[in-house]
């Protein structure tokens, strides 16, 4: 087929001159297998159904579209007030000077670069594995590309309840940095970990995080994708949930010409709980895509997707969310809501909510709405003396609150709420 040939040629051209990183036997095997997957699938194009709403060309191009390093001016870093273990990457390279000592009771943190050198490592069984699982039924070639070529990232093994969150800080150094990072996290039975992520990362950022949450374990993920507007990012968060485990992820995004956040979860143990939520604030040539795929393959599990976007001046929001309930996954409780608040007629929200259910005793619901600011509420606020922009911000915050409420940790939730307020004030001008 001509289309297939074109895709193959484009992929070959893109990979020309790229060689797999050096490493020990397990890492090399995983990377070779990922490269084979990538070559087989080909890089995504606009013709792919899964990329219908988001153009992948700037994510796959050989040349990196440049992005000026963002100057936060007087804005304090996100999560500044949170007691956390900081791990800093600059343009995707671990920065030991800026990072804390990578030691915490019950948590072993290694760099991928080091772990990949050894021939025997626990990561062997898992590295790239959740990404492979996530390739069916929908292909995610950019994730396979990441597994094949990423040289840095963290390999985290959690055996107890971590005393404080691990905070991944991605700093941006060069206008044309093209960064791949791959993290692998295993949370052993009964253990708990919170991972925070923030920072612009790079001009172009491709990140994969694979998380295995074992029986009775808990994993929390809170991410702030900051105000740096010019960067492009594609991220994949793969998770596998054991029995009675918990997985919760929340992302706050402001700005970004291109962001595609994919979350792919498999619930394979009974009574597990998965929540994925996001709040996004977009302006102008902002394009933000949440693509979620949750597979229920166990009994009595709960999953929740809550996504809210506020768009203005021609910004675009995309939501592709799916709940797949496999045969036998009885008593599934699946919920999905995606909502957009359009502050003007130029902005758009494209939503594709999907349910696919093969079990007969389940409760699944989904909804998607697109609306404008409530004029009545706006007038009410103004009639009490609140100026138009401030009144609008109050309503925007109220709209996003439902998603932010999904963050379990109150301290982190307050930190992000304060951040959101700051962003709203800053964009008033």
């Amino acid at each position, binding site marked *: 087929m001509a289309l297939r040939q074109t895709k193959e040629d484009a992929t070959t051209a893109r990979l020309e001159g790229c060689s797999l990183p050096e490493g020990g036997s397990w890492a090399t095997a995983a990377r070779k297998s990922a490269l084979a997957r990538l070559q087989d699938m080909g890089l995504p194009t606009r013709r792919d159904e899964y990329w219908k709403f988001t153009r992948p060309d700037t994510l796959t191009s050989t040349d990196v579209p440049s992005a000026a390093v963002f100057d936060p001016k007087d804005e304090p870093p996100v999560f500044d007030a949170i007691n956390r273990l900081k791990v800093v990457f600059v343009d995707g390279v671990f920065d030991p000077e800026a990072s804390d000592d990578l030691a915490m009771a019950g948590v072993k943190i290694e760099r991928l670069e080091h772990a990949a050198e050894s021939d025997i490592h626990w990561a062997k069984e898992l590295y790239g594995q959740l990404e492979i699982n996530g390739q069916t039924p929908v292909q995610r070639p950019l994730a396979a590309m990441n597994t094949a070529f990423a040289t840095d990232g963290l390999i985290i093994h959690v055996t107890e309840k971590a005393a404080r969150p691990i905070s991944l800080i991605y700093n941006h150094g060069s206008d044309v940095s093209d960064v791949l990072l791959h993290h692998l996290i295993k949370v052993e039975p009964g253990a708990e970990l919170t991972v925070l992520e923030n920072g612009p990362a790079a001009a172009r950022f491709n990140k994969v995080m694979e998380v295995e949450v074992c029986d009775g374990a808990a994993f929390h993920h809170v991410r702030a994708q900051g105000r740096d507007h010019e960067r492009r990012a594609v991220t994949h968060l793969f998770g596998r949930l054991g029995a009675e485990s918990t997985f919760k992820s929340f992302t706050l995004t402001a700005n970004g010409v291109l962001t595609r956040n994919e979350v792919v979860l498999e619930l394979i143990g009974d009574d597990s709980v998965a929540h994925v939520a996001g709040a996004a604030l977009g302006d102008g040539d902002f394009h933000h895509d949440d693509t979620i795929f949750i597979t229920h393959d166990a009994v009595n599990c709960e999953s929740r997707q809550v996504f809210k976007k506020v768009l203005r001046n021609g910004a675009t929001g995309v939501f592709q969310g799916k709940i797949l309930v496999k045969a036998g996954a009885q008593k599934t409780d699946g919920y999905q809501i995606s909502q957009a608040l359009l502050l003007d007629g130029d902005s758009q929200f494209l939503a594709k909510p999907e349910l696919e259910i093969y079990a007969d005793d389940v409760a699944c619901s989904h909804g998607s709405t697109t609306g404008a600011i409530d004029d009545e509420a706006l007038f*009410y606020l103004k009639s009490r003396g609140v100026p138009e922009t401030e009144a609008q911000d109050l309503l925007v915050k109220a709209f996003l609150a439902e998603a932010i409420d999904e963050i379990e940790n109150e301290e982190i939730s307050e930190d992000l709420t304060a951040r959101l307020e700051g962003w709203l004030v800053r964009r008033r001008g």
Partner: protein
Amino acid sequence: MLEIKNLHVKLEEEDKIILKGVSLSIGAGEVHAIMGPNGSGKSTTSYVLSGRDGYEVTEGTVTLNGEDILEMEPEERAAAGLFLAFQYPVEIPGVGNMTFLRTAVNAQRKARGEEEMSAADFLKVIRAKAKTLKIDADMLKRPVNVGFSGGEKKRNEILQMAMLEPKMCILDETDSGLDVDAMKLVAEGVNALRDEGRSFLVITHYQRLLDHIKPDVVHIMADGRIVKTGGPELALEVEHNGYADILAEVA
């Protein structure tokens, strides 16, 4: 305080004229009431005064303490001292009542070049005022008017009025949907705010609210005009004889 002269108003979207030359003068510290049958233009008067969209003033002027308010945005009118207690207070999910009130109080202070109220001071003042209106802590925490009963919503309006300390208060059918006890509570709240520097315009269908909030002047409105003005006895006349008699008399 408030001077309305020959006010003509039509709907923006259609050719419907609602107010056909309303004139009204309310002095400082006075309480005026506007009564009238449905569709006479009472509520439109309150909306136009507060600056709601959808109305076009084709003729006439409105001044508050000598300042033309028709060109002002609703928030500027509020900062200038105008307050409208809504007939149907709006529910705002996700915005806490307390946050809303503090934002409003401080926005007005800022607009007037005054210092903002600290969180602690604000809390102290609002607690005291809420207590006299029998508004509990839970109502202050809940989103604005969401899940409030009719009576709670109206008490919440009066609480806002008490916090914002406006000079000119307009009450649009504040008695609608209230039982006798709730109406008394609301009236007490209003009466507590009566002051020689503060004026009220009470819009109502019925005389019963005026038993509790005693007006100095009563106007009867019909078909977009004030057709009769008198003392409190005019309200009683309406109560006993209905509007028909008065309207027949002025026709």
